[in-house]
């Protein structure tokens, strides 16, 4: 499409630039009736855009809001909204850059786990809207001959996500979304959080770091044997059967395929 002529009556460049930049004045051609001013009038649109996007982030990241407090959260979100406004008309896709923004946000340095909590919250909403699929039936796994299990590869369920953290991310997430009673945590308790949607409700599950690495490796298409090897690097006491059972019952996978040739692990 050719560029719009300069004289187009709706200058969307100017109108939209001012919406996210409080230092700009109202665009040309915008006016009140009978020569009245348009500063407060144009500010209604500014306010609608900024506040509605901050509200959208508050809806997506309620645990982050609870951890920081309302005023801190809204100030942090305002900076993010102005720096990174949404590019999709689907607001439930917004905020994917917010965890990295939080990680680099100097005033939030005293809450080093905050970005990982935000990653878990963003993954929660993605899981909520993910495509429908039946979780893997454990019988499908049982049907694979024992000598070919190690080479089996799993397809992650569309709602699957795992967030690994050096902090107790599962408990901080759960306690701040009213899923778990408040209790002290040790900040060096590393945890992973598994996010799945069995029976069509988003579910969060605690995983130890080795099980988190295992789940992540399986979701990326590594074989069961390769994923177990990585998990054993993280923790020599890694319990393969326990981790696999937990992942299957949480609906982490949608399908499994045996290797074409047995015993490759």
């Amino acid at each position, binding site marked *: 499409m050719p560029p719009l002529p300069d004289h187009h009556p709706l200058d*969307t460049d100017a109108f939209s630039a001012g919406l996210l930049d409080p230092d700009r004045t109202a665009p040309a*051609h915008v006016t009140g*009736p009978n020569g009245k001013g*348009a500063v407060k009038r144009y500010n209604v649109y500014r306010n*609608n855009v900024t506040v509605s996007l901050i509200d959208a982030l508050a809806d997506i990241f309620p645990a982050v809001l609870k951890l920081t407090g309302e005023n801190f959260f809204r100030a942090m979100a305002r900076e993010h909204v102005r720096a990174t406004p949404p590019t999709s*008309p689907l607001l439930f896709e917004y905020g994917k850059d917010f965890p990295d923004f939080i990680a680099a946000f100097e005033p939030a340095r005293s809450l080093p786990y905050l970005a990982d909590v935000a990653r878990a919250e963003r993954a929660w909403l993605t899981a909520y809207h993910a495509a429908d699929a039946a979780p893997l039936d454990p019988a499908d796994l049982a049907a694979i001959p024992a000598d070919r299990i190690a080479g089996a590869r799993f397809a992650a369920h569309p709602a699957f996500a795992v967030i690994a953290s050096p902090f107790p991310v599962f408990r901080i997430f759960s306690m701040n979304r009213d899923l778990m009673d408040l209790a002290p945590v040790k900040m060096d308790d590393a945890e992973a959080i598994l996010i799945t949607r069995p029976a069509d409700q988003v579910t969060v599950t605690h995983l130890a770091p080795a099980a988190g690495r295992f789940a992540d490796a399986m979701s990326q298409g590594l074989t069961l044997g390769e994923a177990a090897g990585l998990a054993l690097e993280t923790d020599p006491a890694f319990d393969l059967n326990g981790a696999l059972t937990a992942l299957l019952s949480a609906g982490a996978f949608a399908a499994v395929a045996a290797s074409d040739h047995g015993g490759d692990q």
Partner: protein
Amino acid sequence: MTTARPLVRQGAASKTHPHVSPDRFAAATTLKAENAVPSAAGVGFKPDHLTAILDDPGSVGFLEVHAENYMGDGGPPHRTLERVRRDFPLSLHGVCMSIGGPKPLDEDHLARFAALCDRYEPGLISEHLAWSTHEDLFLNDLLPLPYTEETLDHVCDHVDRMQEVTGRRMLLENPATYVLFDNSTMSETDFLATIVGRTGCGLLLDINNVFVSATNHGYSARDYLAAFPLAHVGEVHLAGHTEQEDDEGALLLIDSHNRPVADPVWTLYDEVIAKTGPIPTLVEWDSDLPEWPVLRAEAESANAILRRHAPSAPKVRHAAPA
């Protein structure tokens, strides 16, 4: 010399806009009777009210949803919509199509909207005379446009495209606005009437928006409604507004959808329905959500007015003037 009448009155930009018969969507839209939205009150559906609504059958004639909330691939939103759709006719209301913008519509977004039409068979579909995207930015508000021949051409192209892709007649909603443009060359009502004539779309008359804009810009809401092409209105919206001040300290109303419908808006609604007869009427309440009985009572107020002006209602005989 032919005497055949053109399907639609000749407009200024007839070369760029082939005329379209208003009934061109009659064939494409094989609307089953049970999917039709009745001329009764409905409400904007909020999942918070799901259980209360299902336990209160007959309370409202239809439900309206914002299309974008159901554009995810799967999950609980679709289970919820499938469930309410079993009990209620549906109006599918888009809020992000950016029909009022200068750029072509987002084809991906159109495809998502059309897929929802196919899946949920809404009895009505609608969008706004507004824009909300710019380049790759989504601004999440219904932004205003000047009313000129050029913007009219864009809007008509966009309405045509949306009707083409969905295979349905759409309703276009009049906006609530806070600013005017000094380069507008026609009134909002003329602008809307011309779009109807060129595209065959219908209109969604938001009477709260009329009251808000009229107050903000210092004109009479009754004059606006007198000029509005009421014969093409397929749905009415009612909602609450809040009060602020403009630069001169005068009243500036905000279309906030967080309160009951204001008394003057009910009065205007009564006057419109007296002229048109019953029309599907939606009560919108989008933030600071009330308990279900409060919203239900708003819908019942609309139903009372609709019943009063129903063709079968007994007419009150007025004494002849002396």
